[in-house]
């Protein structure tokens, strides 16, 4: 498949999923209530949800593709640098302290602060070097610390209600998000994604290793700065608003790589569109399966993702055997 056709196909899928997300609600395709109520449901409930699904899914797919290309590791995913862990910790602390109830944007703002602090810690730990190994190690350190502190907050939850609220938030969801939250997160995600998209050429060069890439014009320091900044903005904002939606960033680039002949630069746009389509479709499916909202999006994507991985392993094994 040519890369134009792949992009067109995935673009159509993402637009269709966006439309479906607007049209299909808890009550099926029919909207009940007065015209005013329908207007409210469409603009204030479904539109933010669809917009966030598109942006967050795209962000996760794109970041996964960039990180896999940058680290030259097909197991890299958006959470690897500890930034989403930091955002989750910030949000959990906001719930724990009761700050989340004080004003509407307290939760996402605390998430953004957590992401920013995690990025700072990452930058300090990884230092001025240019190797990808130090970056992975620093990321592991930051995410372990954030994870440990998140567990501590859960452990010391003031009451069972707060604990379950934190747990639910950690599972990731698009429900009950307002347009204000969209306006807070969307610009950050857009800037982050733009920075990440600009790494395409450097990622292609890195296929041949760091020395050859440098000879082909890659500035390793600049590339690392772009990858870290882009991921921090995009994933930090996505996680701050929607929690951790797992497996999308790992799965989508994997799934699409064969269609781009393995070229990491050409994988970026398809991964954005594929991620957007996947999250939107999953969110629509969620409303059909679980109309009362008891099933969380992050749980559903993990339920799709884990068997997918199993299949990857089995396929890899049979390919190796043959």
């Amino acid at each position: 498949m040519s890369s134009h056709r792949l992009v067109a196909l995935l673009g159509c899928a993402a637009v269709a999923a966006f439309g479906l997300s607007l049209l299909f609600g808890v009550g099926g395709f029919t909207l009940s209530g007065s015209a005013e109520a329908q207007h409210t449901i469409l603009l204030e409930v479904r539109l933010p949800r669809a917009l966030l699904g598109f942006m967050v899914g795209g962000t996760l797919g794109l970041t996964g593709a960039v990180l896999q290309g940058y680290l030259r590791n097909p197991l890299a995913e958006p959470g690897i640098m500890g930034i989403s862990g930091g955002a989750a910790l910030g949000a959990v602390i906001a719930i724990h302290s009761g700050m989340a109830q004080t004003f509407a944007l307290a939760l996402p703002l605390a998430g953004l602060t957590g992401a920013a602090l995690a990025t700072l810690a990452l930058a300090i730990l990884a230092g001025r070097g240019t190797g990808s190994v130090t970056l992975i190690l620093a990321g592991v350190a930051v995410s372990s610390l954030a994870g440990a502190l998140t567990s501590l907050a859960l452990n010391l939850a003031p009451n069972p209600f707060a604990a379950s609220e934190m747990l639910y938030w950690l599972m990731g969801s698009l429900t009950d998000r307002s347009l204000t939250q969209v306006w807070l997160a969307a610009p950050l995600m857009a800037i982050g994604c733009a920075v990440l998209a600009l790494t395409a050429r450097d990622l292609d060069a890195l296929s041949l290793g760091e020395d050859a890439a440098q000879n082909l014009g890659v500035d390793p320091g600049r590339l690392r700065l772009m990858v870290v900044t882009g991921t921090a903005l995009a994933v930090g904002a996505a996680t701050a608003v929607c929690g951790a939606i797992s497996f999308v960033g790992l799965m989508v680039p994997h799934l699409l790589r064969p269609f781009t002949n393995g070229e990491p630069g050409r994988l970026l746009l398809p991964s954005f569109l594929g991620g957007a389509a996947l999250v939107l479709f999953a969110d629509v499916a969620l409303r059909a399966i679980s109309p009362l909202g008891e099933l969380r999006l992050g749980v559903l994507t993990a339920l799709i993702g884990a068997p997918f991985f199993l299949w990857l392993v089995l396929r890899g094994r049979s390919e190796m055997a043959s």
Partner: protein
Amino acid sequence: MTGLMGDLTGEDIGVTLGGREILRNVSIAVRPGDFIAVAGPNGAGKSTLLRVLAGLTPPDAGTVTLGGQNLRGMDRRALGRSIAYLPQERTVHWPLKARAVVALGRLPHGAGPLRGESDVDREMIAAALQRTDTDALAERPIGELSGGERARVLMARALAQDAALLIADEPTAGLDPAHALQLFETFTRIAAEGRTVIVALHDLSLALRFCARTVLMKSGAIAASGLTRDVLTEHEIGRVYGITAKVGEIAGVACVIPVSVRP
């Protein structure tokens, strides 16, 4: 050739890595049309010297200039149009097709996932595939190729860069004799076009036969440098490698035969 041309000069280069002196007081000057061998025992500093000359490792002492301009601070893509560097490492991290690997050589010229390929890019890629005898492999994923085929495809990437200087680190390692010969014939033609070729190698017979000049290194310094037939003598080879070697001709072709390790 579209990049900056001219003489590549390294003066009093010193490199220290992790407190260990890898290179000291190495000076080298190359001109367009030179085909130079860099030889010496393992750990003599050949690879580091090549990396310094390619602008990948900034020297701790001394300077490297290209056409009078210091490599340090030169725009990296401009450098990539002037100097093509072929590392010893032959890992390709994704299942790219051979042609896509060769096309990466056009990145410093502006080709890439955003702009696509120009007619010149396509011409250069086709020529590079042809010169390395890899036309037939173009549409095959790199992971399916043999070690020798992969080495030739990566060589084609460096050729597609269309640079005035080509610096290759042991390009014949793992190649069968036919393809090693073919590669050195290609290098000779490239040098005849007025480009510079610098090759690190262990096959002294190839150096003696193809390279006009040789830099012989030992323990981070230049042990001997000059016309290859003056440098690769039985006496110098013996002194630098610690072996007894015979230099002679078989069927009119110059060759070096290592005979025994000196006690």
